[in-house]
């Protein structure tokens, strides 16, 4: 008994040393689907500058974009988050439709182009990515380089391409954007063709990047940050912005939303103000290959600006509607 007693006292002492037991006077709770490896340093910088402790919830790769969004929805009756930093511009609409977005026009956002700000202040976009084709240069010669996402359905590449599971992550938004742009019939036909062409459906964009980088497939659909990570790691990967002669590449800014009914609205506003500064756009460009929306923010070598690429012209609000509408059909398509 004494041995057990001393064990418990020892462990209790150990637990009491837990730094998480300490709470500072001011704090802010943020839920984010932006990769932790990129977002956490931004939060640490905010903590350093403001003295406000940031308590964050991050998504995993497999549930990217939807895990924390669903948690926000599950907690809707009693919100726990002050800020939602989405990794795409569509999720804020889903939050807004449920009355969970608090209008807030941040003074930091005044120089962000108006197209990327909600008129009522319920969301503000910044630091964008694009959907790109990651191409393995060993398997694909320069002359055969795919130029359109339609090449995923080309018999030339049968069984040699991959996309992430469209029930999760940015692929959901991309598929929904295709439904918005092409219409129901054409989009469904394209996805059916992908299946006939034995396109691999993998767990995440990170997995697409891995398959391309290891020459397991010829090319796949992912995000610009995946592409730049692969290039940085020295993989034989080329990043192709698709459909530059056609509908354009899908551009996906990240988006800041103040959550309605969050426990710390004041500190929440301060965090939104910080996220929307040019400094954060610069940091996201440097560390995560996110394209700044402001023209004046410098970008590292090799990273394009939004103005340098032909972007798909889509109404994000309509994409949000389509994204919800097509889910049952998509689940069938995936086989779940």
């Amino acid at each position, binding site marked *: 008994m004494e041995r057990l007693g001393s064990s418990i006292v020892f462990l209790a002492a150990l637990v009491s040393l837990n*730094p998480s037991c300490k709470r500072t006077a001011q704090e802010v709770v943020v839920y984010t689907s932006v990769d932790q490896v990129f977002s956490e340093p931004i939060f640490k910088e905010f903590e350093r500058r403001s003295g406000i402790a940031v308590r964050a919830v991050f998504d995993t790769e497999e549930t990217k974009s*939807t895990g924390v969004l669903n948690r926000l929805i*599950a907690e809707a009756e009693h919100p726990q988050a002050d800020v939602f930093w989405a990794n795409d511009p569509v999720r804020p609409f889903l939050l807004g439709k449920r009355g969970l977005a608090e209008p807030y026009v941040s003074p930091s956002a005044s120089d962000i182009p108006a197209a990327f700000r909600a008129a009522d202040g319920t969301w503000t976009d910044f630091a964008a990515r694009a959907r790109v084709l990651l191409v393995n240069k060993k398997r694909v010669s320069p002359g055969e380089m795919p130029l359109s996402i339609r090449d995923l359905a080309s018999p030339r590449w049968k069984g040699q391409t991959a996309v992430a599971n469209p029930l999760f992550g940015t692929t959901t938004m991309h598929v929904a954007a295709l439904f918005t742009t092409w219409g129901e019939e054409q989009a469904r036909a394209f996805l059916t063709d992908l299946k006939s062409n034995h396109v691999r459906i993998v767990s995440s964009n990170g997995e697409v990047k891995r398959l391309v980088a290891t020459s397991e497939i010829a090319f796949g659909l992912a995000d610009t940050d995946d592409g730049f990570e692969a290039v940085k790691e020295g993989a034989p990967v080329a990043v192709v912005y698709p459909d530059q002669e056609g509908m354009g590449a899908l551009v996906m800014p990240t988006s800041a939303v103040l959550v309605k009914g969050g426990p710390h609205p004041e500190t929440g506003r301060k965090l939104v103000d910080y996220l929307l500064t040019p400094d954060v756009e610069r940091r996201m460009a440097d560390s995560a290959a996110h394209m700044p929306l402001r023209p004046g923010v410098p970008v590292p070598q090799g990273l394009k600006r939004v103005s340098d690429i032909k972007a798909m012209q889509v109404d994000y609000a309509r994409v949000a509607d389509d994204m919800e509408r097509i889910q049952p059909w998509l689940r069938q398509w995936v086989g779940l």
Partner: protein
Amino acid sequence: MAEAVGRALKRALLRRQQMLVLAAAGAIVLLTSAVPLARLLSEIFDAGAAALGVLSAVRPWLLLIRSVMLAAAVTACAVAIGAPLGLLIARTDLPGRRALWMLHAFPMFLPPFLLALGWFQLVGREGFLGSEVTDRLLFSQVGLVAVLSLTFSPVVTSMVALALLGMDASLEEAARVFAGPWRVGTRILLPAARPTLALAAIVVFALTISELGVPMFLRVDVFPAAVFARLGGIQYAPGEAFALVLPLMPLALGLLLLERRLVGAGSFAVAGLRGMSRAPIPLGNWRPALATASWSVAVAGALPLVALALRAARGGGFGNLPQWIGQAPWTSLGTAVIAATAIAAVGLVLGHGAARGVRGASLLDAMAVLAFVTPAPVLGVGLIAVWNRPATRALYASAAILVIGYTARYAVVGIRAVASVVLQSAVHLEEAAAAAGARFWRRLIRIILPVNLRGVAAGWLLAVVFCLRDFETAVLYYPPGGEPLPVRIFTLEANGPPPVVAALAVAHALMTALVLVAGVLLLPRRSPE
């Protein structure tokens, strides 16, 4: 007057002490697991036809059949590996059997996803031993069965070994007079361990059928993924998700009935290490071959950890660890210790009740089993629905919600561990104390706990490890800024530097190893017989 009423009330409470203590322990099980699951049941009614419509589709049923078949295959492989290995470890002169047992058992204390990550570093296309063929095999149903079989076979090995070590020596000694080692092993020892083997098979089956992370990583569609698609996908549909859980309920009940029927009270008889000191059965000429085979299995199970360590070391992952590890180890350790203490307390009361056939205890045990086999995300959503309220905000927004979640999911560990030792302890001590006028609470603290202290402590240690390895339950509701280490590993896996992710995984394995070593050292010693 008031004094008389007070005395009468006190007498009534004393008379019903056992019922009250049982009710308190039962309340913990009900509040943490039954209420969240019942809350989700109401979601089915809210969702109406859409929720039930999901069951009319063919695809979920096909996935369920596939999951059952995969779980059966993993169980068969785990038994094929674990039963002979358990016998060899417990009762033969296999060289280094204690070390072999430790090496073989260790992976079962780690999150299965982490081991899958290690296998990928090892035999993935770019892995240390990888090729196109090994990569294809890994990312297939064969790969899934192989990874999970190696992960869960130590459950069978350990349970069989413990059962054989605790077995009455006279049977074996009598057989050894007339029969050779092979005959003693196959005709006496393994049949004697059959109840435990059945229980181990049920545990492995339950662990496999509820596993989500590894099948998703290895791109094999399974039934829990269909449930998860309704909770992690864009169309948040908890009603539909819970409707999909309904077919799992008869399955869980079936497993429970099977266990009771095949195993009965003997299912709990697994504790004790008395046999390790008995004269081992000599393997003779078979010794080198069997030693090579046994050590190969143990080393194979540990290879993913070696691969992760190599990946971390080669990429400078260990050097960057301080930058990325944060407070997660503390959160993991703190919440696991507190939850395990609650689980051990609940286990002491309900495990004792289940072993002694106290009314209601078996029902609560069944509830704990159901919470264990229910897909973790479903339980997680139920916990959010129940605990995210203004009145319980202090709990929900803090590490306490992790403790609640762990208690919900792993209460069964404490209940079963305590029940196993209570069944082996003499009931006459409790009866004598009761005859001498000791009330239940006094008997519990002065007799039942000290007599079964080793079993309770072992249950506590096992619960700590189960909480440490949890990922799929906690990821849905972990408190902001307070993620446990497995969650941090998998959130950082998204575009995080692979060597750092590998280093975090190795850090998790080391933390678990330290907890196990400390726990075993601090475990109360068995008193001389």
